[in-house]
């Protein structure tokens, strides 16, 4: 059943857009970008790690591409990849140092890193200083520059589908499955005794997570055709965390659900900023207190009549012997 639904969704995303108005395309583009950010953040949140500084890596990816394209006239297609790679490298560097820390220490150090990155972009003129970098061109394909909403929508869709497929499949690899063994200090010690090098796995997970943030950050900057230290801020990291928590940590589809719902809801509340954050916060607290598994756990709870099931992605392929 789930395969069919997924196929339908992808077909709709590919075929329907030409009919949509530019504003609808804009909203779908923003949702697709946020979904990839949320799914990338989910990779480490699923591992029990909370990051308040993912906007820093998104900014790194965005600035890398913006600088490469505007200063060295490199084609944006390379800029996208470079954005992901640079974010990954910084993730590896910070990960090696901070992933030994657990819990709030890790979250705060990533948060501090993001603040330093933003302060650096603001301070040095080579990064465009507080004004940022304007005139970041859209990529060109077969000679035409993809300036209209529809054209660039397909770029965002392509990158999003590839990223989401990769992140989905990652769960069913041994690597994705092993990350589940590192959720707490005790299970980490047990994993170590089974030959799993916890530090290396956690760092790799952090690199994967930041690679996709950087990649999508670059695409985002080329969509805005602009980047400045005020675009990817602490508030973006907050929103992403809220999308993942409201959607639910229990399954791959949780963060996606949370992002689509809340971004859609957010679009309605365009008149005043603080109404949007008020609604986000109320929804977040209601879900955390009344629905710990997040919205994604709702169908299971309604069907089962309240059994609070520990919903964790089961390595279906790896346990094919189990029919369910």
């Amino acid at each position, binding site marked *: 059943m789930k395969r069919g639904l997924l196929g339908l969704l992808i077909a709709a995303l590919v075929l329907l857009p030409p009919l949509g108005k530019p504003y609808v395309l804009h909203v779908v583009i923003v949702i697709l970008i946020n979904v990839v950010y949320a799914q990338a953040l989910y990779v480490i949140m699923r591992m029990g790690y909370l990051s308040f500084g993912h906007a820093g890596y998104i900014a790194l990816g965005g600035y890398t591409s913006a600088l490469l394209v505007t200063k060295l006239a490199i084609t944006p297609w390379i800029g996208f990849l470079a954005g992901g790679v640079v974010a990954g490298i910084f993730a590896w560097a910070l990960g090696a140092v901070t992933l030994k820390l657990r819990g709030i220490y890790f979250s705060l150090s990533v948060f501090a890193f993001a603040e330093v990155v933003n302060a650096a972009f603001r301070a040095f003129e080579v990064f465009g200083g507080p004004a940022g970098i304007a005139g970041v061109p859209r990529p060109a394909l077969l000679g035409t520059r993809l300036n209209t909403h529809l054209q660039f929508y397909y770029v965002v869709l392509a990158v999003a589908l590839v990223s989401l497929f990769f992140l989905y499949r990652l769960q069913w690899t041994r690597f994705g499955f092993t990350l589940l063994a590192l959720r707490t200090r005790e299970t980490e010690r047990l994993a170590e005794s089974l030959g799993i090098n916890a530090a290396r796995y956690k760092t790799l997970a952090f690199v994967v997570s930041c690679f996709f943030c950087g990649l999508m950050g670059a695409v985002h900057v080329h969509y805005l*055709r602009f980047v*400045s230290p*005020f675009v990817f801020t602490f508030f973006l990291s907050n929103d992403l965390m809220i999308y993942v928590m409201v959607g639910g940590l229990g399954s791959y589809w949780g963060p996606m659900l949370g992002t689509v719902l809340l971004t859609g*809801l957010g679009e309605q509340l365009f*008149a005043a900023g603080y109404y949007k954050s008020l609604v986000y916060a109320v929804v977040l607290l209601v879900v955390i207190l*009344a629905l710990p598994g997040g*919205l994604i756990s709702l169908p299971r709870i309604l069907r089962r009549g309240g059994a609070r099931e520990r919903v964790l992605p089961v390595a279906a392929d790896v346990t094919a012997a189990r029919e369910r």
Partner: protein
Amino acid sequence: MRRPMLALVLLVALAVVGLPAGVHAQKSFKVGAIVPVSGPAAAFGLGVQRGLELAAEDVGVFAVAGEKYKLEVVTYDTVYAPDKTVAAINRAVYNDNVKYGVIIGAGVHPPILPIIRETGFLDFAFAAAGRQITNPDNPTAFRIMASSDQLYQAYAVAIAEKLGGKRIAFLGPNDELGKNDAKAIKAEVEKLKAKGVSFVGDEYYERGARDFGPALLRLIAQKPDIIDTDGSPTGSIALIAKQARELGYNGYFVNSTAVLEAKAISDIAGKAGENIIALRIWASPPTKLYTELAERHQKKYGEAAPGTLWETYGAARWLVDTIVKAGTFDTMKVADALAGSTYAAHPFGAASWGGEKAYGIKRQIIMPIPAAILKNGKWEPFDVRSGKFE
């Protein structure tokens, strides 16, 4: 079982509340207020929103090419963030077919200028920064407030003659506004080198910061007699004055971007507020309309009018007059008609457009520049006569 159901019901209720309100009976001419109405810069945004609302009341019903219209204000909160401004202009132009609007913030303009060019959106920019917005590539972008270049020309003359100031220092936020204003001031002060006026130092602080002690210490060590605080938010200027006096500085303060209420400054700084010169304050109301609007705002919204009210009101009334005369909503035609016209009933006084020499296109509003100096808690006229600004 009960708790999840409760959660589900609450979520559905919230989603419904969010849906946009009903539809207006009469045909409406929508004007967007793409401004921050939350966050630190909210005061500026609300001034624009209310300026448009008061203008809509006064304009009432007007006819264009035989159809009756009322002016409807649609607010899009940008929270002064670039990506939110892009979302707002996308929604305004493509979803709500809003073709006209006031947009605050030089910092948020770069990402939306391409969209403004592509769609011909008529942008009344509330942003001091000069060339980036008003230039030949953006035929439908007008600046409805005095630009920083305009203000410094006026203010540079004031330093040399009236205040006899010789050593100018700058203290402002480390964002794009502060850095641009500092560059503009340095350029103007260079021109006065012959008169022995020199620029002695510039310091920056985190926007929204509260403690200016360290930065002021460095500046005061240079013995300045004028400290320019351009780009600083309203709340900070009084604090700067207070903390500077505490550190022994007793020269002048000059600000050409913020709008300051005398009472607000004396609340924070008390006597330390003396000798603040503001280039956006009218010591004595320039026109009867100016006072009327201030009183109507106090009655309607229960608080003093933010500084962006009058310029927005004036620009909105001028726009509607032009559209009625031109008999069309086509932004390119209206832009040309507007640029060529003058408007006597602007709250600041007679207004016209200029700026061909400075920016290569007539899109800079030319109107009397207010200036006042704070003397024992009251604004007194500070006569700043400057050369023409082409």
